[in-house]
């Protein structure tokens, strides 16, 4: 089975607010049909980078290119059929039903009058089945738990049927069980449909496990990128978080796992680690 491929690049992005620049000349290319995760400390600009890529923030200079075309030149509805975003804290209109909310993801595919076609129904049904929320279809969203809500939001983004999906911290505020559940579902999506996924995650170890490709950001600059096993080193963790650590192999996934070293409870011996850092 072959997936639709896109090239998605950022060229020399500078973005931020009037008095404070947050992104400092970032250039990158998102690997098509893979899961990329942007990592970095709080306020390093990772969320700004994601929002600039997902055209929520207009860059001050530089541009974002989809298949070689600047995204601000692509008609907004047409772009919305290729590029989706799940914001960090989406706003729920009080009293809306799950099916209606998921259905709103069909907006870029519908005409002005919003009549539902067969494809619309099927896309919504499919999104709800993938996220396992079919039973909740006619429930009000305010009655749901945090984990269920997050699944509804992702289902809405799925109903949009975009080839590229951006997610801004999709696992924040969720219990560990739901974090794993959401990340597994996103991996399903990537494996089954070839959806290119780009997300910001807080947890470095889950990032290393679930990402095919990592982008590390510090103070608005891209300081490293590559496959987790190539990129994650104790030096990189020191660089982005200012934290001493040792890197071990996650016994479950064989991906690198960061074990932090604080001032207390340092009893064992610290193994030395290899790994290359691609420093820019």
């Amino acid at each position: 089975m072959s997936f639709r491929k896109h090239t998605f690049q950022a060229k020399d992005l500078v973005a931020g607010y009037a008095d404070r620049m947050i992104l400092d000349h970032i250039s990158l290319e998102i690997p098509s049909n893979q899961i990329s995760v942007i990592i970095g400390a709080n306020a390093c600009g990772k969320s700004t980078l994601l929002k600039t890529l997902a055209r929520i923030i207009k860059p001050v200079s530089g541009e974002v290119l989809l298949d070689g075309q600047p995204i601000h030149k692509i008609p907004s509805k047409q772009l919305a059929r290729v590029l989706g975003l799940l914001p960090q804290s989406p706003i729920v209109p009080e009293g809306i039903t799950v099916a209606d909310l998921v259905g709103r993801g069909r907006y870029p595919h519908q005409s002005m009058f919003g009549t539902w076609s067969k494809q619309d129904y099927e896309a919504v049904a499919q999104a709800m089945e993938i996220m396992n929320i079919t039973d909740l279809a006619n429930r009000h969203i305010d009655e749901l738990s945090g984990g269920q809500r997050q699944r509804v939001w992702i289902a809405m983004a799925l109903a949009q049927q975009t080839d590229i999906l951006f997610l801004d911290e999709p696992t924040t505020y969720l219990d560990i069980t739901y974090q794993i559940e959401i990340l597994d579902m996103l991996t399903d999506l990537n494996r089954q449909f070839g959806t290119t996924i780009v997300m910001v995650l807080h947890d470095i170890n889950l990032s290393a496990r679930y990402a095919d490709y990592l982008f590390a950001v510090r103070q608005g600059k891209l300081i490293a990128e590559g496959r987790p096993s190539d990129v994650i080193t104790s030096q990189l963790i020191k660089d982005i978080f200012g934290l001493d650590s040792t890197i071990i192999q996650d016994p479950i996934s064989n991906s690198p796992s960061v074990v932090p070293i604080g001032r207390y409870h340092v009893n064992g011996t610290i193994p030395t680690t290899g790994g290359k850092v691609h420093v820019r």
Partner: protein
Amino acid sequence: MIMKITLSHTITAETVEWIRAGRISRRRRWLLVTGILAFLAFALCAAMLLLGNTIYPVRDVLAVLAGEEIKGASFAIGTIRLPRMLAGLFAGFAFGISGYIFQTMMRNPLANPNVIGITSGSSAAAVFCIIILESSRTVTSIASVIAGLVTSLLIYVLSRGKASFSIGRMILVGIGIQAMCNSMITYLMLVGEEHNLPAAVRWLTGSLNGVRMDELPSLIVTCLILVPLICMFNRPLMMLELGEQTATSLGVKTDPVRVLLIISAVILAAIATAITGPIASVAFLAGPIAVRLVGIGAANSIPAGLVGAVLVLAGDLIGQFAFTAKFPVGIITGIIGAPYLLFLLVKLNRRGDF
């Protein structure tokens, strides 16, 4: 454009049916509620024409509407009751729909043309015209429309910060401007000539008394142009309700849509205010009542407009006939609105939205 449906995941027909059934039942509810509201508005319009000091038979009322001259009835119905009814219908609709747009777009049940300062700007200008300039009704109306538009523009400019437009800031700036306008109104009332005060008070309360036929075309034409335009933007408005980021990623051009809807809502509120005065609470109550009746999944601008019309017409009938004294409609709707405002404040406070 992108069809991934045929890939490995098969969709069960049951799920599609289940979703379709839910949608159809919500759609039916929308049609039913909107139909009932339209019927109610129609019945109230009929009552406005039939009831009065003299109750004319339906036959006479229809004859007058058809253009026949009937002694007594022609004056009472054609000159007094018909303009009153039309003003109530269209101003109510305009207040309702404009309030709904503000509340939905700002995602705040407290947002309405009052809080945004449009009506207070209009009122201050109108009171100035009545008390200081002693100008005619027409001049007063025009001045109040212009003042309403200028006030809302001022609020919009002041609430645009360095980074971006903020809804919270707009509401706060609106409350500030409203306070300034109100203090100006109070000052004008204190220095005004006594014989001008009743007109000013009637204007401030919101009333359908003394509306003349020749004042109405501006309101009716504005409604006939802007209401269909607003309906065309119902779906982008529903997406805006999900927040700036989600709306953008769904392909809504948020800035032009927001500006267009705000301008339409402001013009509707300003023109309606110029003719009837700021009828209290209608813009504030109509949206939530419509949403409660219809459910939130659908676009509710038309139901909200109808609820607005029903509130104004019913309020005016109650004010005219329920008590021994006659009250302007604004007093009745104000009495209905106050408990709801309190309820809302308690609810928002409990939820921690302040």
